[in-house]
């Protein structure tokens, strides 16, 4: 195992993880506005496209994307998001890695789809909130009657979760495409893509 990655690859994974984390946390602050909290994965998908595409230009081995997912999950865990993100991030990243492998790490189409799958890992952060919502609903129903529950509950169902997952995937693909364009505009000229 330790023969497979050079130190350079590991450092690349670390640096790009930092950028993803900073972006996710910076825009995660928006989540304190209640309605936007539900849309957080979509925002994350929107902004992580550019760094992810740049990261992919430096990936040529199977496992690097998976490793990045694992690292992101561990950092989420260390910063207090419970252990769920580790599992979800790693799984999504593994699927993304397999998709990339099928495109031999150079196919544009595969890398766009891979970003869509990879970014679904952000739901690892959301799942505890969705579990908490059941308690919220119970508490609200007890203290304020059923009217309020009827107003809020459309946003809290599992159907809504599924719609969110699909939307996030689509937005992730679009932002990966945008990322590819930005890469062409800025980084290829500078000779680092």
């Amino acid at each position, binding site marked *: *195992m*330790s023969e497979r*990655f*050079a*130190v*350079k690859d*590991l*450092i*690349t*994974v*670390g*640096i*790009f*993880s*930092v*950028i993803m*984390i*900073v972006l996710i946390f910076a825009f995660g602050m928006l989540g304190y506005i*209640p309605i936007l909290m539900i849309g957080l994965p979509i925002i994350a998908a929107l*902004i992580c496209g*550019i*760094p992810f595409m*740049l990261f992919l230009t430096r990936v040529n081995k199977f496992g690097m994307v998976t*490793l*990045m997912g*694992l*690292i992101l999950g*561990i*950092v989420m*865990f*260390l*910063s*207090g*998001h*419970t*252990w769920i993100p580790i599992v979800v991030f790693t799984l999504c990243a593994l699927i993304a890695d397999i998709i990339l492998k099928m495109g031999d790490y150079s196919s544009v189409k595969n890398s766009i789809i891979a970003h869509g799958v990879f970014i679904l890992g952000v739901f690892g952060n959301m799942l*505890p909130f969705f*579990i*908490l919502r059941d*308690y*919220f609903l119970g*508490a*609200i129903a007890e*203290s*304020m009657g059923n009217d*309020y529950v009827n107003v*809020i509950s459309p946003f809290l169902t599992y159907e809504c979760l599924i719609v969110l997952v699909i939307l996030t995937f689509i937005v992730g693909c679009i932002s990966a495409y945008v990322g590819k364009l*930005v890469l062409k505009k*800025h*980084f290829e000229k*500078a000779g*680092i893509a």
Partner: protein
Amino acid sequence: MELGLDNQFKIDPRTKIILLVIISFMVFNEAPLYVSGILVLVPFICLFFSDYKKAAIIYIFLYVIARYIQIYLLPNTTGIVSILLVTFSYTASRMLPIFVMGYYTITSTKVSEFIASMEKSNVPKEIIIPISVIFRYIPSVYEEIKSITNAMKMRGFGFTTKSLKSPLKLIEFYMVPILISAVKTSDELSAASLTRGLSNPEKRTHLIDAEFNKWDYILLIVSIIGLGIYSYYFIGGVVLA
């Protein structure tokens, strides 16, 4: 604290991680204060006896307010105020302990300490190196963001309402310099670590000895007792019902 220098409060990174895992069980269930109390106090103890007294007091203050709202104010309020209070108090009372513990883990751990204790417990290199890069690089990303903001202000494109009208441009202007400097840093770091022999397959030696001291054992025992009470409360409840 009359404990003397060699009794300094210093816990091993491994203990911190175990504590995080234990506290994260708390998030999923609602429990009365006498059940979850011990686990709530663990981050407080950690913060209080290291150099974060202010943060510790703020934390316990917020927690008490959240609990107070939950128990005494909620039955008497109605309308939108009530929704806000429910959101605040439930989020705070469940998520706050684990957020604070995470904050403590990240701010109080030195990179070399972390590497030493991780290598002692045989965590593979593939995980240690990226995480130590993260510890090392996050502060410099913040500095870079600051200087990019300054440079943009100089060109008349700061955080104003005008620039917020074109958020795509804003994102592009931030993202491209950060990414370019990140790529450069990653090249420089790998060159630096190669010269220091990071790719050497031999076992590394460390200046810091990562050993469990008595604080580690005290905290671990306390939190395991807390977890025991906590799980007994739920499992026992199920059996009785």
